[in-house]
Every structure is written in C-alpha cells, then in structure tokens.
C-alpha cells in the first residue's frame, strides 16, 4: 500500500492499533513469564495432563462430529426445503448464546435426569465430569464453525460437476466422496481447524459440565482463582504456545493439501 493520502495514514494507524490490541496482552504475558517458571510449568504433570486432555478431546470431538456435520453441510448447500432457515438459525444459535448458559442447557440434557444422560447411564456412563461430557460441551459451542465453513465450500462446487459424476455412472455416495468432498476440502479443513480451536479454548460450557478432569482453560482459571495471577500466568503461556503450535501445524497441513492439487506426474495406474 502506498501512503499517498491522509486516508491511507488513518487506515494504517487504526489497523496498527487493532493489531497492537491483540498482540500486547499476549506479548505481556510472555514477557512477564521467566524461562525458569516456564520450564517448571512444562514439567508439571497436572499441566501436562490438562493440555493433553484439552487437545485430544477437542481433536477427537471435531473428528467424530465431522462425520455428521459434513453431510449436513452438503444438504444445506445443495437443497432447499421447508424450514431451512430455521435449521440454519439453530446451527448458528450456539455462537450467540452466553457459553455458561449453553453449559447449563447442556447439563440439563446430559445429567442423569436428562435424555442423553439417562441413555448413557444405561451403559454405565456418567457424562457429567467425564471427557465425553467435555466433548459434548466443546462440540455444542463449536460445531457451527465446521458446518458453516463446509456448507460454503460445498456451495462453491459447481452443481454441474456433481451432475457430470452421476451421468458418468457414479452412485451418489461415490459422487460425494470423489467430487464434492475433494473440491470443498479446503473449506472443510478450515472449518475443522476453527471447530478444533474453538473447542479447545472453551471454558464457560466446559466448566459447568466438568470441573474435573480439568481442561487447560479450567486449570488456568483454577490457578488464578486460588493462587493469583503470577501462578496462573505460566500455565496460560504454556497453553497458548501449545495451541498456537497445533494451530499452525494444522494450517500448514491444510495448505499442503491444497498445493497437492497442482499438476502431478501420473504413473497411469493410480486409483482416484
């Protein structure tokens, strides 16, 4: 951008202020944490367990829920049906709900008196205070990111290509797996990453469903509540760094996948 006019300067200053607002607290957090504190926290078994629990549950939740969410996104992109706007509104609802309220709503559903809770208790599973309950809380507040992104991806795939696939003899399932899915892969991956990131950072809904086992956001809150800022800060830094590393890694994987669509040498015998 060439800074030719006062307008460009104003845009630059306002943009810098917004970026500073995002960077400053994170930078402050890292600057105020000594390397010694950081090493101690990294070696803390409790921190390790909570970070691993958060990452693994968030990742598996995104993976499991994608099985249903991706076909739903395809339906929303391809079909018009009565009540479609209501369905779309319901999908977006968790984004606007206060997350503590979402947690309360979910608790009523998965506690022993709730519909899902009763069903789970039949097989001896108590969802409250369980990683499965944490997964449900994470999914409830983050699923819309995956569905909306995947829906936009499917909508961008020309309908003609799906019709061509069927005309060439493919079944609807094969059409979906070989045309719709590969062509909207980037949007689905992006939605998956957003769902994963949103799920692992969730505090409000998770803390109501499961204080224990502690996810990283709950652990940070508990340390802050009981011992103050100085004790909570290293745990926060560790979690932020781990989350950042995972986030960058997933982004790189999805970009790598996208680049793989570039022309390739064909050996003549590969299957699609």
């Amino acid at each position, binding site marked *: 951008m060439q800074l030719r006019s006062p307008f460009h300067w104003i845009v630059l200053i306002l943009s810098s202020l917004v970026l500073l607002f995002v960077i400053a607290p994170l930078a402050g957090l890292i600057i105020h944490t000594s390397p010694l504190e950081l090493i101690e926290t990294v070696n803390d078994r409790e921190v390790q367990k909570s970070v691993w629990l958060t990452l693994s549950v968030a990742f598996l939740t995104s993976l499991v829920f994608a099985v249903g969410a991706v076909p739903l996104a395809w339906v929303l992109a391809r079909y018009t049906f009565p009540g479609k706007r209501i369905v779309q509104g319901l999908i977006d609802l968790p984004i606007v709900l206060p997350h503590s309220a979402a947690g309360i709503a979910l608790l009523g559903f998965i506690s022993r008196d709730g519909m899902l809770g009763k069903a789970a208790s039949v097989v001896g599973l108590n969802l409250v205070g369980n990683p499965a309950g944490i997964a449900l809380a994470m999914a409830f507040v983050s699923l819309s990111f995956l569905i909306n992104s995947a829906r936009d991806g499917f909508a961008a795939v*020309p309908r*003609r*290509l799906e*019709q*061509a*696939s*069927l*005309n*060439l*003899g*493919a*079944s609807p399932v*094969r059409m979906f797996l*070989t*045309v719709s899915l*590969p*062509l909207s892969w980037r949007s689905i991956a992006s939605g998956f990453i957003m769902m994963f990131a949103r799920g692992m950072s969730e505090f409000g809904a998770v803390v109501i469903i499961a204080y224990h086992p502690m996810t990283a956001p709950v652990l940070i809150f508990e340390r802050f509540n009981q011992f103050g800022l100085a004790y909570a800060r290293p745990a926060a830094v560790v979690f932020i760094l781990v989350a950042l590393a995972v986030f960058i890694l997933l982004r790189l994987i999805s970009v790598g996948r996208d680049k793989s*669509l*570039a*022309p*390739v*040498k*064909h050996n*003549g*015998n*590969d*299957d*699609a």
Partner: protein
Amino acid sequence: MLELHNIRKSYPGFEIMDLSLRVEKGEYFVLLGRSGSGKSMLLEIIAGLRSCDSGSVILNGTDITKFKIQERKTGLVFQDFALFPHLTVYDNIAYPLRTKGMKKSDIDEKVKDMAWEMNITSLLERRPDTLSGGERQRVAVSRTLVTSPDIILLDEPMASIDTPLRDDLRRLLRDINRKGMTIMHVTHDFREAIRLAHRMGVMHNGHLVQTGSPDEIFSRPRNRFVARFAGVQNFFNIAVERKGDTIRGKMKNGIEIELPEGNYGDDALIMIPNSEISASGNFPAGSEIVAEGVVREVNRAENGYEAYIESGDIFYLNLSHESWAVTPLLRGERVWITFPGDAVRVLQ
C-alpha cells in the same frame, strides 16, 4: 433409438408442451433453437438431470423416464465441459471406468486407447485448467465415449471453442457418428446444424416447430421463425387478390406474384431467400420479376458484402466478392432488383 413421447415440463413463465421426437439409431440429430427455447432443458430431461411432469423417454426400447441419472446410459457432454478440476486428464477419462469397478490394467488400456484415438495422449498428465477450450472438449467427449453410452447428448459443443478449432471438432463428431454412435446435438447456430445433421428439429418457446432434413427445413421452412433461423431475412406482407382461378399477391412496390392454391385471407407472408435476389444498375432484360429500388446501406460480410435496398419494403442481398468486383453497389444508387418467381415461398 431415442423416442420422446409427449414430454411436458413447466416452470413459471416457461413450459415444454407435449414434445414428441424420434432419433434413429446411428443418426446425427441437431436440435436448433435460441437460448431459452428449452433445448438444453430437453437434454437434461433425457439425461435425467431434470424430471419431466409427464411423458416418457424411451431409449433403445426401454422406458428410462424413471431411471436414475447413473442408470440411463446417456452420455451428456456439458456446454462448459464439467471436467473435474482436481483430477488429471487421465483420471477424468478413467473416472467412469473406476465407477464400473474395472481392473486397473483394463482401465489403463482403455484410457490410453481412447486418448490415442482422440489425439490427446500428450495431455494425459495435465490438469483441465491448463488446457485450451478445444482440448477440454476432446477430453470431455473422450470421458463420455469411454462409457459406451447408447446416445451422446452434446450441449452447445462449439460454444466455448475458438472458431479455427471448430472444423476439427466437427470432423471429430462426424467420425464418432460414422462409427455408429447416435448423437443428439443442441445448438443455436443454423450453420452448425447444416454441416452436421442428418435430421434436425427447430425449437421455439418449448415447442418443436419443425423436424426434417436440413434441406427440407431450409428450403421449406414452416413459418417465419424457422425461416429467420435459417438465415432468411426477406419476409414480405403481401395483399392477396383473386382474379378468377388465379390468386395473386401484390407487394408494396407493386410487383405481383402468382400464389399457389391455398386458403388465404386478405394478406399473406412470403419469403425470398437472400441468395435468390440480385441487383444491378442496368435493367436486367428477360428477368421474371423486376423492381426498381435505392441502395440504402452496404456492409462488408463474411463472404463478401450485404446490401439493403429499399423498394417498397427493404430487400436484403448477399453479394460475393466476385459479383461485387463486376457490379459494385453504391449507397444512394438507383438499382434494379430481380428474383425468379419460383424462389418465392408462402409461409404459414
């Protein structure tokens, strides 16, 4: 053989009404019509991309009206080719074969044979976005041919091809047809229809107006729409007069033409093919029908010149470079126009 019986399909503001059609096995049938006439929709109904409200689609004796798209054995080549952008040319052609669950070695053999036949072997490892329009069309046709369909449905196949490459594609389509493949080809270009069709149909507003050989349609168009589509520009309203047993029509410039037997009102619509009208600055002695006029406009055209001459009505003439060299027409010049009496055709 493809038969359509009383196909109906209606949308708000548009409908295909009771359309019946028959395309013989091995025939090259061209469906001609303006955009929005319903011709592409008809292809989609045949291929199963759209359902019809009523009527039936019979292919080689089997009623496929209720068949799923993938069970119809109709090979549709889309106007925009619809090649899969994430697959190489090889994988695009292999796609339908993999769908059938063929062995990899058989797929490889079939794809390479087809590529050789279609002269696209060098393109097999490329992706569609690196190909020209003509190359994409060849890949799209190959991908369809490899499925061995009972009929190939071509939706405006020349639309995305540069003019110099159209001859190649026409040759290719003729070759495919010569090998026994039934082809139904949809276009808005009557020249394309003349060059390719064994038989053709003209569609207008969801109706099949006329079917027949290109010669029949272009020499005896059923109505003004078909005639206009066939490139005829000279239509004239004439006053009908009966004198005893003869019926005569009088044009605005006073020329009288004898009309064949028929039920006429007070006026009728006639057409004269552009190629039958000639013009000269000298009085053409011995000509059957002659009228005086003024050259209003002269423009360069594809194969020479076109001139508009006012003589009561406007007469459109096509002049070759050769005839222009002998008798050039100048704007504002007074000329004599002439045409043979049997060139005049009365339209419905």
